[in-house]
């Protein structure tokens, strides 16, 4: 039974890959970019929670590390963009 949950996650990852490639093939422009990046975020969340066992992680520190990394990157990228877009 417990094997099954990993198989389900893997199947979900493959289905999401199929959806993302189909979206790209449709060439719907800017909305397509958002969909494709959102799907990448969902896929990596699945890997983090289930394959990397963050879902059952008991230590708060470890649960917070990834959000901290994402927040750091968001600040880097956000600040850089406010610079380039206002030049």
């Amino acid at each position, binding site marked *: 039974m*417990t*094997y099954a949950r*990993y*198989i389900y*996650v*893997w199947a979900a*990852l*493959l289905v999401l*890959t199929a959806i*993302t*490639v189909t*979206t*790209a*093939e449709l*060439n719907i422009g800017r909305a*397509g*970019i958002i969909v*494709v*990046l959102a*799907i*990448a975020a969902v*896929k*990596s969340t699945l*890997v*983090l929670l*289930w*394959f*990397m066992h963050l879902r059952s992680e008991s*230590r708060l*520190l*470890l649960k917070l*590390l*990834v959000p*901290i*990394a994402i927040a*750091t*990157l968001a600040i*880097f*990228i956000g600040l*850089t*963009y406010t610079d*380039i*877009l206002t030049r």
Partner: protein
Amino acid sequence: MELEARDHKVFSRVGMWLFLLSEILIFGGLFLVYAMYRAKHPADFHAASLELSRFDGTLNTAILLTSSLTAVLAIFSLQELNKPKHAALYLAATIGFGFAFLVVKAFEWAAKFQHGLYPRAAELGTRPHGEILYFGLYFTMTGLHALHVIIGMVVLSVMLVWVLGKKATQKNSAALENAGLYWHLVDIIWIFLFPLFYLIS
């Protein structure tokens, strides 16, 4: 004060996650460079991305996702089921998928070299500035990622030997767990590289 085995396991996991955090920041910096140049040269990035084989990229995505499944099943087989032989088989499969990923990547790179689309190539020199930047980033980022795949395969091979030699067991599986975490991170980086280079155009 004596450390208990449980504490030891937690510390090794914290150390591994801190290392993974630094890896995320390395690739994050490269993603930032990519995003900046893409904002500056949208048309060139579009034209250059059409040169990549979407089929190869999708195939490699499926291969790497499947290798993540076999990696997690190896850990599960050892930790929960105490079946080292199954764990060894799943590890061997994971290494095999890693190798398959590199083979597809090698064919892709070979095709780019044939078309003269590599850094400092005469043909690429005639292209617009944004396309030169695109292929520079393509080789840097997929190359650094492929290096991580190779390192991951070496680490998993050591784990395979340890499982077979009973150095990694149900009670002593922290190293295998950390090796799995590394492999999954390499998978996550590819999850982002794939849309950025192959899908967005």
